Structure formats: structure tokens, C-alpha cells
């Protein structure tokens, strides 16, 4: 049992991002209101960003900004890679956050347009009004 606990303790960050992702996925599928689905979508995307950022983390390492004497043309003391965090996941996640905001903005515009046409954002009322429209 302790081996399992050690396994979980060593990688608890990766287990927790799965829980967040599942909350987001559940909200996207099961929620009735379109805006709630949008919140679920954003939680889903932020959970993946959490996974990426926890890849770049190193114990007792500082933030990936090289300050002080190394700064002038690199002739300073040799930079030891172990005491700086991994910059690459941070770069990827800057892009992913801005993509999720852009998608959120477009989806919001679509929600407003749906509300303009059908005066509701509830999935079941929408389905009813859609089927009514076909009959007439």
C-alpha cells in the first residue's frame, strides 16, 4: 500500500490535472445551459495547461530568467541548467492560454447570436423551438 502511496505522492500533480479535466468534460457534456458549457470548455483547456506547466517544474530551481552576471554576452560563469526551470512548456502554454481566450470570445459571440434568434440558451428549450420552427 505504501508503494502505491509513494507513487501517487511522486506524481500527484499529474493525477490532479485529470480530475480538473474530467470536471470540465462533464460540464461540457451534461450541463443544459450553453454558457455553463463554455465554462466547462475553459476549465478543460486550463487543466491541460496545468499538465504542461507541471512538466516544466524542477525542484529547487528558480524562474527561467537569467539575472546578474551571466547577462552580458554569456562570458560570465557557466549556466547550470539544473537550477533554472524548463522554459519550453511555458512558451507553449502562453500560446494555449491565448488560443483558449480567442475560442471563448468566438463562442460568446455565437451564444449572443443564438440568444438573439431564439431568446433562450437552454439546450432543451432550444430543441423545442427548433422543432417548432420546422413544423410551421
Amino acid at each position, binding site marked *: 500500500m505504501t508503494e502505491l502511496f509513494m507513487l501517487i505522492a511522486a506524481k500527484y500533480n499529474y493525477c490532479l490535472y485529470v480530475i480538473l479535466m474530467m470536471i470540465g468534460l462533464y460540464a461540457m457534456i451534461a450541463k443544459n445551459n450553453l454558457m455553463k458549457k463554455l465554462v466547462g470548455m475553459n476549465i478543460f483547456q486550463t487543466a491541460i495547461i496545468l499538465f504542461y506547466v507541471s512538466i516544466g517544474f524542477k*525542484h529547487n530551481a528558480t524562474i527561467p530568467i537569467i539575472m546578474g552576471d551571466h547577462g552580458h554576452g554569456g562570458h560570465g560563469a557557466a*549556466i547550470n*541548467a539544473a537550477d533554472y526551470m524548463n522554459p*519550453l512548456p511555458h512558451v507553449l502554454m502562453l500560446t494555449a492560454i491565448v488560443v483558449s481566450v480567442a*475560442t471563448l*470570445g468566438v463562442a460568446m459571440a455565437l451564444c449572443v447570436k443564438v440568444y438573439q434568434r431564439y431568446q433562450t440558451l437552454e439546450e432543451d428549450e432550444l430543441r423545442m423551438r427548433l422543432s417548432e420552427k420546422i413544423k410551421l
Partner: protein
Amino acid sequence: MKLLSLIVVCLTGGLLLYGTADLPDWGDPNAPASLHLSNYYIENAIRDTEVPNLVTAVLADYRSIDTMLETAVVFCAGLACFLLLRDFTPKKDHHYRHVPTGVILHVKNPDRQVIVGNEFEDMDKEWLPPDTIIKTVCRMLIPFIQIYALYVVAHGDFSPGGGFQGGVILGSSFILLAISYNLKYLLKRVSEKFLGILSAAGVLVYMGIGLAAMVLGGNFLDYEKYAPIFGEHHIRALGMLGVEIGVGMSVTAVMVIIYINIVSEGKHDEGL
């Protein structure tokens, strides 16, 4: 329906949890992720680009095509909100408030314009009493937000920050102006045409820097090729600064475009 989705979600969750068993431990320095590529970045970024902030160095120089496509995504979102929501039908009725007496005029036909001078004040349908505290505080606050935003854009090389964050802060200062006063007040100062052109111009600045490198003989977005023009010293840092400014321009304009179109449903008359 809810139970079915719960089962699906737990199933995928279980599969992913099973997948995490083989992952390297969280945060140990010699996990494969932080050995191969990132060590190169940490050790050589200073020598290649003289930019202390590694994230900006990788963002704007090693993987600069990523960031350009990223700015194209932001431009696409701004264009999308313009395309989807903007409707150009003129508004039928207008509300004017006579400032000295507080009488409200409700002008029905659109061609009878009332000059919005010192006496008459233009206002939205859901008229809110003019809250002087919010207006004065915001009027004082906004210039400092904008200066801070420009600092964030310019200082991306040394401290955490850069084009995206600075652009969003600058955009939110305009949004604050629209919230504290009303949307027409903002649109008088920042017209929709200016925002549309600014958002496209930002990405064009980014692209121009890349294409000029191509004309000068290097590959696309290769800042090294500017050396004969701008001198050898700090050439990549200069290239990155130019790119960050382009990103900041387009992100600012797009955030304001999205806000204006969502809040006024495309009619650009009344807002939050």
C-alpha cells in the same frame, strides 16, 4: 443523460489516470523532458539572443512562427466577432437627457439629431445615474494602466511580460473607459475603423519583420539578417522587441473589438 455522461467521463478519467503511472516523477531535474531541448535553451539563449527572460527568447526567436500564428489566431477572433455580431441597421429611437433640468427626451425618428453639447447628454436606454465617483477614479486611473501596459510590452525581454500580457492590459484600460462612462464615449475616442486597422497592422508588423529577413537572404523570421542594417550588437533582442510591439498592437485592438461587439450586440450604441 447526466448519468451516461458521468460514466463516459469517469471512463476517460480512469484511462488517463492509468496512463499517468509511467510518467516520470514530478519535478525531478533529470526527467527526460528537461534534459534534451530545454538545457540547450537555458545554456545558449543568453549567448545567442542576449535576452535574460528565456521564455521571451524562446517565444519570439526560436519558435517565432508559433507566436506569429498565435497572433493570427487573435486577429481571427477579432474578425470573427466583427463578422458575426456587427449589424449596420441604424437604431430607431434615441434618448437624450437635458442636463440642467434632468428632462429626458425620447427621439423616435432617427433623422432628427439633437446636438449633444453642454446642455444635452446622450445616454443609453437602461440609463444609470451618473456616478461621479466611478467616473473621476477611472479617469485618473486609466492613464497609469496604459503606461503600465506599455511598460509590460517594452520590458518583456527582462521581466515576465511581453506582447500578449501588455496588449491585454492596454485593451482592458479601454474597456474600463467604456464601462465607467458609456460605450459611445469610448467610440468617440477610439473609432471602430481604427481598431480594425490596428488589429491587422499588428500582425502585418510581425510579418513585415519576417518578410524583410527573407528579402535580406535569410529564412523567414531570421533576425540575424538585419545585422548589416542595425549593427551587430543586440540584433536579436531588437528583432524581438519589434515583434512584441506588433503582438501588443493587435492584441489590444482585438480585445476591444470583441468587447464592443459582444456588449452592444453589434449595434455599437449601448453597452454595459
